[in-house]
């Protein structure tokens, strides 16, 4: 049932995205308009939180709220990214967000709290749910042999499926696309994780994020990270896009 609801929501979101994409598809001068303001904010917030640049993060959070992100959506970005850069960065990001919200409250700004996550009503085991979510993400059956790391340390694969892809991904405050934008932003920011960056950029493409949107993501992240890291991330993206081209 939960699966059905999720699918329903996904369809609604997709339809909605479809509409906004369509609306945004072309501007007056015929250039393609890609990432919208909310997406850009999600990327900037994720990247700055992962980097630990809390001062710049403050203004990114303000911009995100002004762009229409709800308080819960931004909180969810912070929650999601701990899986990729750790609790400490996540907690510092959340504290920074509290500060920003308090300041805005004092100024009389009313921020939208937004929807809470739909409760889970799914009888499958967490592992099964996580595997199914991951299969939806990569649009493929995961019946092959476990990856080398999973054979080496089986528990990490269990944690990935049960926790990251069930506990976290089942929270429908953010959709899969938004979550993957967060993930790619964090990975590009922390650097040195090219194989994962490659996989998640590929998931982005599978989930309907366009190559141009990914290039724009690089530009947003590029403002916050050093040249070497962003060059490396762009190289991964170029190799991925090259492999898709025939």
């Amino acid at each position, binding site marked *: 049932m939960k699966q059905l609801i999720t699918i329903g929501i996904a369809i609604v979101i997709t339809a909605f995205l479809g509409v906004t994409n369509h609306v945004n598809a072309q501007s007056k001068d015929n250039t393609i308009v890609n990432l919208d303001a909310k997406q850009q904010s999600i990327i900037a917030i994720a990247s700055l939180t992962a980097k630990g640049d809390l001062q710049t993060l403050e203004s990114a959070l303000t911009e995100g709220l002004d762009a229409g992100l709800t308080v819960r959506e931004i909180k969810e970005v912070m929650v999601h990214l701990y899986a990729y850069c750790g609790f400490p960065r996540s907690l510092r990001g959340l504290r920074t967000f509290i500060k920003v919200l308090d300041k805005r409250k004092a100024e009389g700004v009313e921020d939208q709290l937004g929807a809470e996550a739909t409760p889970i009503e799914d009888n499958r085991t967490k592992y099964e749910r996580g595997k199914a979510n991951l299969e939806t993400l990569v649009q493929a059956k995961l019946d*092959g042999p476990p990856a080398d790391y999973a054979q080496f340390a089986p528990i990490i694969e269990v944690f990935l499926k049960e926790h990251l892809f069930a506990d976290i991904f089942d929270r429908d405050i953010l959709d899969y696309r938004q979550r993957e934008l967060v993930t790619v932003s964090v990975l590009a920011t922390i650097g040195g994780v090219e194989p994962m960056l490659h*996989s998640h950029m590929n998931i982005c493409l599978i989930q309907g994020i366009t190559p141009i949107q990914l290039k724009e993501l690089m530009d947003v992240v590029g403002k916050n990270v050093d040249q070497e890291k962003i060059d490396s991330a762009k190289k991964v993206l170029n190799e991925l896009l090259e492999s898709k081209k025939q």
Partner: protein
Amino acid sequence: MKYLGLFILMSMLSIHKTIRAQSEKNPFGLVYEGAITENVDGKVNILPVRYKLNGIDIAANVYTPANYDRTKKYPAITIAHPNGGIKEQTAGLYAQHLAEAGYITITADAAYQGASGGQPRHMDKPQFRTEDIRGMADFISQYPGVDRERLGALGICGGGGYTLKAVQSDKRFKAVATLSMFNTGIVRKNGFLNSQISTIQERLKQASKAREQEAGGGEIVYSGVDGITDEELAKVSTLFYRQGYEYYFRTHAHPNSTFLYTTSSLMDLMAWNATDDIDLIDQPLLMIAGSNAQTLYLTLDAFPKATNSKSKELFLIEGATHIETYWKPEYVNQAVNKLVDFYQNHLSNTDL
């Protein structure tokens, strides 16, 4: 070639062959369009290799992706060539395209055929053709940079039928694709489009007789053709065969490529069927064929029988004939894109 299915007994006639300038032009002997002419750093490279398989010397080409780095891990794909074909023709074209998409690929001449060793020449027995595919897997699994857990198979035409057979029991292959699959066994038994059902026993007797002659030290008897004159070509009424002869003897000719096979091979071929035990295939399966291919019936027969494949897909290339899927860019591109999607989905190593 008076009419299709005429059973020809011929000694190794050397029918006048077209000048084969194409293969001489390319330093690697490749005769497909857009073939690599030199190994450039940072681009797809080709490496001719030789290895032993059951005592027979196998000639193969390995293609490595751009910026190949032996310390990295790449998925790999074996490519089995068509009947009468060799690694320098369409199998090489697909091997090169898949290498461009990031795969390490290998395509080998069948034992007893092409540049591979083995006597008598042009023996074409299904068990050997199947073994050739396993031999490619043996070799490429040991190749620097190959991720053994991400091995895929592609078989074209007859090679497609043998690939279906190989992966039934060879679980090193994690994803299986065929292009214009040709189930040689049932075609040799029943004739193309079931045109020779009335002569099955007769042809088996001829094959047995040929074997008897070989056993007695006599001349090797051959079936098939080793070239065709323009007059004969004009008379070939079956499109599949006519386009095949044009491909193999004119546009993509190569001295090692021939339609000859030992008549005694029919003893094995006619009692063999690629779809026997096809329910053993539990790997993901993609079957690609041209919508206008006269051989489509062979793919349509096999596909539903693969009942245990984890995920299977039939992809028809609109308007393509069998032979056109070997070379025509618009069709080749469709096939390659489909293959790359398929292998990416099923041989991907998702690092999370």
